[in-house]
């Protein structure tokens, strides 16, 4: 996949430091953080941790550099993104959150919106899976994550079916690796690379194999 840096519009030829089995949380981070967001985040952490999935957010990493670039790199490095929407979140923050979900969906990440019953999502996201924060929330979140954990097998199957298109196969295997953390997907991806031939270390093909 060719990634264009949103800060300068140029193709990015730097390797991504992948973070398998992590979940990028998109919500209000700056103070004051509404109480309900703290509660939702606590619940999410308690559901993710037993599955070996680590929640991270934009504050988990300090680079001292461009904030958008940092978020963009983090979003590319993870398999899963969860957005938390409440009616207390100001419109500017909501706009950022939906921008980030949109990017993650375009990059083939698994995404989920968690919303409070009184909050609403823009019409472009009506097909995005969402869970309301109310009774039964944890059960629904666990069900979603159970479905996500089945996807690596599906992605591996697609990689096999699409082997005449090695870049696509490699990308599906990378997605499978990010969800599962299983390095055998990388081995398989290296097999597909044989169909591509020699490339420069920073070529798109080689960068796709940097997981």
């Amino acid at each position: 996949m060719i990634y264009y840096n949103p800060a300068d519009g140029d193709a990015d030829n730097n390797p991504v430091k992948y973070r398998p089995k992590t979940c990028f949380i998109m919500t209000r981070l700056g103070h004051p953080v509404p109480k309900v967001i703290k509660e939702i985040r606590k619940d999410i952490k308690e559901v993710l941790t037993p599955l070996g999935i680590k929640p991270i957010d934009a504050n988990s990493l300090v680079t001292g550099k461009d904030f958008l670039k940092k978020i963009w790199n983090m979003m590319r490095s993870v398999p899963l993104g969860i957005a938390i929407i409440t009616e207390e979140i100001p419109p500017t923050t909501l706009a950022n959150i939906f921008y980030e979900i949109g990017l993650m969906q375009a990059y083939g990440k698994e995404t989920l919106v968690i919303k409070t019953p009184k909050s609403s999502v823009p019409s472009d996201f009506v097909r995005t899976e969402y869970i309301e924060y109310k009774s039964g929330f944890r059960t629904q979140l666990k069900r979603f994550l159970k479905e996500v954990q089945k996807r690596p097998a599906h992605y591996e199957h697609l990689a096999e079916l699409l082997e005449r298109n090695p870049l696509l196969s490699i990308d599906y295997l990378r997605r499978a690796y990010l969800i599962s953390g299983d390095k055998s997907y990388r081995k398989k991806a290296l097999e597909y690379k044989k169909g591509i031939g020699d490339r420069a270390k920073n070529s798109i093909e080689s960068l796709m194999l940097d997981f």
Partner: protein
Amino acid sequence: MAKQKKDIVQTKNPRTGKYVKIDRAAGKIVAHKSTSGPYKNVPVARKRSK
């Protein structure tokens, strides 16, 4: 009825629960079914045994 190409298979997308048609020779997903159930006369791709 048009004869299906040998390299066209289908598999279910677990996210949508709908079938997608794949042209293996071209290495691309060629169609997404909008209704439930598989495409007629298109073999369902089986996973390779490891």
